[in-house]
């Protein structure tokens, strides 16, 4: 198994190389560069632009710039953000916690809502709970995330019940630790609901089908025959087995940890990595883009690996492929 994990992780390197090369090449094909907005200012001297270009290395062909970056990465230096003049790794590390927090709360929300609902729905297929939840799931899967985010902002603006954007209040620095905690929780509610809704629906659908499958199994019939109450059968025996395949989704959730909320963060004004990355793309702040691509790609591969491991662990019939 160690060999399996090592082999998968070794595959990461050429993958990262290829993806960053591709993204870098594409970005250099795009018209304009980081200095374009500077060029459009009316009182800036062309000589300064030329000097800035030189100091950023923008006067060299793109493959040279890429090779230079790659060389630095070998020394674990991911470059500087041109916008912020701060090392990229530092910048990403600053913004990542907010995004991870949001991903975790919405994942939790998905599981907490989906698990009981799925069991109840599958307990009586075709019953009113089943119909209601599946109708709601269809709806939830059909609403574009950004549209839901837009509606949430609207609701918050019109009612004033929720803060609009941000993760902390303005007086956050002056609050006691417990109030600070509540303050953050309060700010997390809307983004969590928006981001978690699709997850609820997806998990619900998968889990319902799993529960239905397990219910057909012989050991469940046996459990019922032993005279166990329906609730014990459902929640102790059925659910445990139905959850196993769902374990693998943890890996996918991990993969999307940093990139899954890009749209929602941007619409809802949430101070996470998604906003940073999107702005970096728009401004063509090359090294921030490359850094986030490296992080995103690594998470995706590691996440898939975790999924496979979880699946193999929960279901002994799955063998580590060669």
């Amino acid at each position, binding site marked *: 198994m160690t060999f399996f994990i090592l082999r998968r992780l070794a595959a990461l390197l050429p993958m990262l190389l290829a993806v960053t090369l591709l993204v870098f090449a594409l970005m250099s094909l795009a018209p304009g560069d980081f200095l374009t907005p500077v060029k459009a200012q009316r009182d800036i001297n062309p000589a300064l632009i030329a000097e800035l270009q030189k100091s950023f290395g923008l006067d060299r062909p793109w493959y040279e710039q890429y090779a230079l970056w790659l060389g630095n990465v070998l020394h674990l230096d991911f470059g500087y953000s041109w916008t912020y003049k701060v090392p990229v790794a530092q910048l990403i590390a600053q913004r990542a916690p907010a995004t991870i927090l949001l991903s975790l709360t919405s994942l939790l929300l998905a599981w907490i809502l989906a698990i009981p609902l799925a069991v109840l729905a599958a307990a009586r297929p075709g019953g009113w709970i089943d119909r209601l939840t599946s109708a709601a799931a269809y709806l939830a899967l059909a609403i574009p995330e950004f549209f839901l985010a837009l509606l949430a902002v609207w609701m918050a603006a019109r009612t004033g019940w929720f803060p609009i954007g941000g993760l902390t209040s303005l007086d956050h620095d002056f609050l006691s630790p417990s109030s600070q905690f509540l303050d953050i929780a309060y700010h997390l509610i809307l983004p969590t609901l928006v981001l978690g809704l699709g997850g609820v629906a997806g998990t619900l659908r998968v889990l319902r089908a799993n529960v239905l499958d397990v219910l057909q199994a012989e050991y469940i019939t046996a459990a019922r025959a032993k005279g166990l109450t329906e609730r014990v059968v459902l929640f102790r025996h059925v659910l445990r087995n139905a959850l196993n395949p769902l374990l693998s989704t943890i890996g996918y959730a991990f993969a999307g940890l940093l990139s899954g909320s890009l749209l929602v963060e941007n619409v809802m004004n949430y101070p996470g990595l998604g906003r940073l990355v999107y702005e970096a793309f728009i401004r063509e702040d090359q090294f921030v*883009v490359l850094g986030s691509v490296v992080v995103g790609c690594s998470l995706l591969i590691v996440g898939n690996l975790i999924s496979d491991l979880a699946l193999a662990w929960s279901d002994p019939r799955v063998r580590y492929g060669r």
Partner: protein
Amino acid sequence: MAADLLRTLLRRPAGLISATLLCLLYGMALFAPFLSPTIPSAQNLQRTYHPPTALVWQKGHLCVQLYKLIDPSTASYQALPGQATPLSWFSRGTPYKLFGLIPGDRHLFTVSTPDPVYLLGSDATGRDVFTRLLYGAGISLSIGLIGVALTSFLGLTIGGLAGYLGGWTDTLAMRLTEFLMAVPGLYLLLALRAALSSRFPSDATFLLIVVILSALGWAGTARVVRGLVLSLRERPFILASNILGQRPWTILFRHLLPNTFSYLIVAATLSVPGYILGEAALSFLGLGIQEPASSWGLMLGQAQDIKIFMLNFWWLLTPGVAIILTVIAFNLLGDALRDAVDPRFRLPGK
């Protein structure tokens, strides 16, 4: 076989409803120039953010309520009681080309100028939201179909060849799919779109987006098709064809790939929403369809303006409802299709 499938499908209420709804939507998109009272670029700066016009029955005609602009600074309009102008049916109006080919100038309904008919209100420059919604449907809906056709084609060909030929073709194809699946999709989308957009005129961005979305999307299909082909290859009827000396290409195209069709149809139907949502998200960010063309995502992106919320111009959010309806219909149809094909058939998770 297709007729059978259709019959089974339409016997299920969910299938019937969703299929009808989709036919309706695509019909509307196809006949948009005829169904809409005007053209999507026609604007009226005197009538910006006009609310949906009410329809009233007056003197034996269906009439459009007239409104007066009472406060241009908040775009508030007031109905003029008793004043309405009759709709004229099948009358001549702005010339158009149906399907991009057939010239025409008949519209289902219009009103005599200068009175406007805004079934779903007007936008920031007084353009008719209903018209833009219909024209936008053409783009939003066809992106799904073209995209799925492209991915299915790519997935089928590459997956089929990889599975059937094996060897280095297989290895190469699988490494490529692994690569594509390991790329953080949104990032690649952003980079691709930035690199390619300036090389296309602004009305061809539409095609560009389809191509980008399908270029990223075929990997999953290819892997499943390859798996199906691998297992089919060992089936007796294929072995028999081999023994009978049929040529490999014939076997692949006559016997192997047709057997993956039922999977493909279901998978394709269920992946259409992904394209529609993808286009909407891109256009919403301002990176997709560009003015003066219209698409649902673009219209929603323009509705992000805060004054639209605070002044309650709710009709500008109707493209969102259109997206939701379409996606639900495709998901329902896909589920119904899957049940019709094989109730035990399970697709790999998204």
